[in-house]
């Protein structure tokens, strides 16, 4: 029996295998959408609690479970408070916080991730929520258009048009950034010229 069919039938071992396979992609997706480490941990846990609750809606036949799980994660990230209310009791039992040893690569990963989050937040944040979701699913989580449509419960054409809007906005932003940096450079050169002239004429 397929993993999909076993999960639909409530097989906890099969579900554990799904967690092993999908926890990292779900966490990464959640971190990109929320920009917050601890919110992403909540999204991760709640996504799998939701997946378990919704398991009987799965078709026994079908391909990878990746679009299904990432779709749930997208919904949870979008409605984190609502999802948290549903699992209020469970979340109270969720083990929180963890000291990260400062000599592991994990911390370095975290610092890099935090820098990255700050750097892209501005640009990503300029997209509408629906565009962010499609961009995160198609570009970062590498779903194809049909899978993203399945994950979000929308038509394939909708995915295409949202992605295309996201692309136009980001390209415009990138062009603006480039123009601004050229302006800064020109202004910077001018300042240094003025300064050196003053230094020569006290």
């Amino acid at each position, binding site marked *: 029996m397929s993993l999909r069919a076993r999960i639909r039938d409530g097989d906890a071992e099969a579900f554990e295998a799904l967690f092993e396979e999908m926890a990292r992609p779900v966490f990464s997706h959640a971190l990109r959408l929320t920009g917050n480490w601890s919110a992403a941990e909540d999204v991760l846990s709640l996504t799998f609690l939701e997946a378990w609750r919704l398991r009987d809606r799965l078709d026994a036949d079908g391909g990878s479970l990746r679009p299904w799980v990432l779709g749930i994660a997208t919904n949870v990230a979008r409605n984190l408070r609502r999802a948290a209310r549903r699992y209020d009791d469970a979340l109270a*039992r969720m083990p929180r916080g963890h000291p990260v040893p400062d000599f*592991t690569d994990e911390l370095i990963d975290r610092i890099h991730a935090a820098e990255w989050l700050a750097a892209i937040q501005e640009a990503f944040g300029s997209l509408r929520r629906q565009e962010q979701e499609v961009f995160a699913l198609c570009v970062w989580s590498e779903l194809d258009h049909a899978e993203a449509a399945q994950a979000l419960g929308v038509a394939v054409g909708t995915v295409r048009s949202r992605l295309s809007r996201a692309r136009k906005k980001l390209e415009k932003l990138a062009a603006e950034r480039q123009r601004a940096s050229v302006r800064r450079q020109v202004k910077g050169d001018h300042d240094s010229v003025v300064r050196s002239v003053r230094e020569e004429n006290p």
Partner: protein
Amino acid sequence: MNKGEREALAGLLPFEVEPRLPNGRHRVLKEFVMSEIRRSAGRPRRRPLRPALLAPALALGVAVAVGVPALLGGGTPAYAVSKNADGTLTITINQAKDPEPLEATLRGMGVNAVVDYIPVGKRCSPQPRSTSFLSRQEAQHPADGRPFLIWPPDEPEFRIDPAAVKPGQTAVLEFSVSADEKTAGIWANISNGPVAPCTLVDSDEAPLGPPPGWDG
């Protein structure tokens, strides 16, 4: 969507490092999720952790052990407790191996506390260890003063407020511990009455604190 198209889009919001969940948290959160769904399935199972599940934790332990002599060999104690100007105490746990010296230190500082370290795949028995724990609401939002455990922890330190433990009460601190003897999670509460000692038993449930519904 083809590869070139995806690369062009990814280039608009580039990142060098995939944000990753640390191994320790992956394991802790999996234990949490699995214990919750087994609970909901109504058929709790007790079985020892399979070798396949232990392998990532052990691998982490090996990787980390390389750094340990540099840290602990430099005279760093297993734990430290320091007093803050506002009356709170900061606990730093570098190696979660033996909880008794930490417990004795806290008692020496006037905090009637019970400390337990819970390794991977274990939990305390009995749970709940007291019939008179404060409710979650009372513990996290006391009517007067600060809660006993001040949230969030300032990793890798934990701050507690001794004033939250009134005469006759006992504070309980349970830490889940990874294979590398680092703390991975914390649970704290205050009991109005006696607290049962922690006997470690095999478990695939959430490692810390009482089972669901304990505070109604």
